[in-house]
């Protein structure tokens, strides 16, 4: 008996040794590296603290370490310049997932761990302002600006960042949801860029058919009605065009109207008449981009910021891809950088924010990042650059901001584009137009506490 137990124990001990042996050597290796690393960085941060260095933290979706992306390269160049001008100051970008950045920022403000500079998406800015999380730019640098300088940046973004006479942010990475089109296909069909909804539909119908080169069944207009599509669809343009606003005075949705019904009927028509494929009902922006790059669409509804990436990935001659303003005007979208009101380095953070809006920085954003300019003066100073065919889209984006579909920041508009897409999905899967719009209104109002 005793012997048997012993032998079991012995075998067990050996087995345990082999089991844990392998695992622990693995562990020792990686933990050593991680430990060394963390102690290093801890030491480093202590050192910087003792030598009086200041760190400005910024949360954005851009990773300055990314050398493939023009906007990231532009940002890292600005950081370098700023650090060179301000000895002892370090800009630390902590790249974030843009889906959760704002929720994280709002949580962090309550415990004092928020970054000095935050980028908010358009739909979230109102809530962030409600939380008093941003410092008015007038307290930082805007008070020193001349009227001319202010006029230089004054556009729909600048106005959206204003509340009670103070500006909290000015807009970065400006986006304009407009119409991508393939100029070669339009030319071949002898058509011009559509400017009304009727023209858009007839042009799209005319451009539908089999693509001779690849054999793909091509549709005139790519739309994406998925509730994961970040870009507002044409229903927004249509309702705005016909009734002037998507919302009532009190911020409730105003969609189950004559204009809303017409808009929905127009969208149904694009699908029924074969200008837009049936599968658009649950296509997301990302799918439609892949499909556009494959040649499935002659025109596509999408934010202009994607242009450099799309040209790079297209499977056809990408120089023919151009950008236009939609009927009803483009939806403006983009990012709004501000300084956290609880930051202990507001002055410096403000200086870096100002730096990102400077004329020099604007040139970087434009030339490296392929972005719409932040300043009107940039458009003038670089007129030759914007006149080039491959850069025209940036000017068109910029132009679209002068009569973009406006939004108020007095009330939150969370998820309005998703709720409207859900209404479209409901109609395209057999629902009644009016009741679908009513449902969407109710969903929007309840989600925004109205």
């Amino acid at each position, binding site marked *: 008996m*005793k012997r048997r*137990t*012993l032998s*079991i*124990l012995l*075998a*067990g*001990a*050996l*087995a*345990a040794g082999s*089991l844990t042996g*392998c*695992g*622990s050597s*693995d*562990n020792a290796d*990686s*933990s050593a*590296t*991680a*430990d060394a*690393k*963390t102690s290093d*960085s801890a030491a480093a941060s202590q050192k910087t603290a003792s030598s009086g260095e200041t760190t400005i*933290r910024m*949360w954005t*979706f*851009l*990773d300055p*370490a*990314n050398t*493939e*992306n023009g906007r990231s390269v532009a940002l890292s160049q600005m950081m370098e310049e700023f650090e060179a001008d301000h000895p002892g100051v370090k800009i630390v970008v*902590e*790249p*974030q*997932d*843009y889906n*959760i950045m704002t929720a*994280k920022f709002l*949580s*962090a403000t*309550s415990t004092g*761990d928020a970054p000095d500079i935050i980028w908010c998406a358009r739909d979230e800015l109102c809530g962030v302002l409600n939380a008093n999380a941003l410092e008015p730019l007038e307290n930082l640098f805007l008070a020193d600006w001349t009227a001319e300088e202010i006029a230089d940046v004054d556009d729909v973004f600048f106005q959206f960042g204003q509340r009670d006479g103070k500006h909290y942010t000015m807009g970065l990475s400006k986006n304009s949801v407009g119409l991508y089109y393939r100029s070669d296909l339009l030319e071949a069909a002898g058509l011009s860029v559509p400017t009304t909804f009727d023209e858009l539909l007839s042009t799209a119908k005319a451009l539908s058919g089999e693509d001779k080169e*690849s*054999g*793909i069944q091509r549709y005139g207009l790519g739309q994406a009605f998925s509730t994961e599509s970040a870009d507002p669809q044409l229903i927004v343009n249509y309702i705005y065009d016909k009734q002037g606003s998507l919302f009532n005075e009190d911020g409730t949705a105003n969609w189950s109207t004559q204009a809303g019904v017409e808009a929905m009927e127009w969208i149904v028509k694009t699908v029924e008449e074969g200008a837009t494929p049936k599968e658009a009902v649950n296509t997301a922006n*990302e799918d439609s*981009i*892949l499909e556009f790059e*494959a*040649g*499935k669409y002659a025109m596509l509804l999408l934010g202009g910021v*994607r242009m450099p*990436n799309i040209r*790079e*990935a*297209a*499977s056809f001659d990408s120089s023919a891809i151009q950008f236009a303003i939609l009927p009803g005007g483009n939806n403006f979208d983009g990012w709004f950088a501000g300084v956290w009101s609880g930051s202990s380095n507001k002055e410096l953070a403000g200086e870096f924010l100002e730096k990102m809006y400077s004329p020099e920085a604007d040139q970087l954003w434009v030339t490296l990042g392929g972005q719409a300019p932040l300043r009107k003066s940039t458009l003038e100073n670089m007129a030759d650059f914007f006149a080039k065919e491959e850069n025209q889209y940036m000017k068109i984006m910029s132009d679209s901001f002068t009569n973009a579909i406006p939004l108020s920041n007095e009330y939150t508009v969370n998820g309005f584009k998703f709720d409207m897409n859900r209404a479209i999905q409901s109609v395209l899967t057999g629902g009644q137009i009016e009741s679908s719009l009513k449902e969407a209104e109710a969903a929007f109002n309840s989600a925004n506490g109205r």
Partner: protein
Amino acid sequence: MKNGTYLPKIKSHLSEVFILIIFAIVNLIPIFWGVITSLKTQSDITAYPPKIWNFELYFGHYKRVISSGFFQCVLNSAFYSVAAIFLGVITGYLAAYGFSRRNFPFKKLCFYFIVVGIPLSSGSSVLLIPNYLHMMKMGLHNHWYTLILLYTTYNLPMTIWLLIAGIRAVPQELEEAAIMDGCSQFYIVTRLIPPLIKPSIAAASLFVFIGSWNEYITSSVMINDTSLKNIQMAIYDYLGFFGQEWGPLTAAATLAIIPIVFVFTFLGKQLVSGLTAGAVKG
């Protein structure tokens, strides 16, 4: 006679191979698609009709992924996972031993408490923001140990349960015999039982490993420091604001599978062949 025994055998072999092939195709087709996408140039990725073989091999996406510090993230993830396995399996084992071999006050209550904890094992987004606030208040977010603690926590309830099942399979008489032989309780817990429940330990380790290796949302909320990034954060980098960058995305995901194959080759052996001789039941 010979024909009579061989023919069905060959037939059954053929059908087994057939099942294996179907199984392999269904299981691996997205992986196959991901791997060939990672080897295509940008314009081949978006080409119509989709290119299955007639594309030019291109390693640029891998180069880009590797040069963006991917291996640091792999190392971080390996460290988080292995540390979570150790912390989780050790504390889980002790708890499992307590639950299966001892009777103490509030035992049932404590066990139901663990049951309530299980939904959190994979649905960590459910408590995310409260947890973030809590971790920030304690100053425990954005450290090298942050994710280890959380991954251990999220997987601990199921780990305990898996290990309880293992310990229960060990006959109590074995422990009694060991005590009669003069072994200490310490010896029983640390030396006698663990080798006998190796398959359960391997199953629990695998569970914690996958839970830690494939976790994204918690890490993206809890971690700010780029040097602490884990592998899923590195993969999600290619799903960012610039859209789905298919080439690097699939390249990163392909690279992320490789360590798992090694882990499985090691743990899987413990898992499946660990109890072959019937040493315990016999």
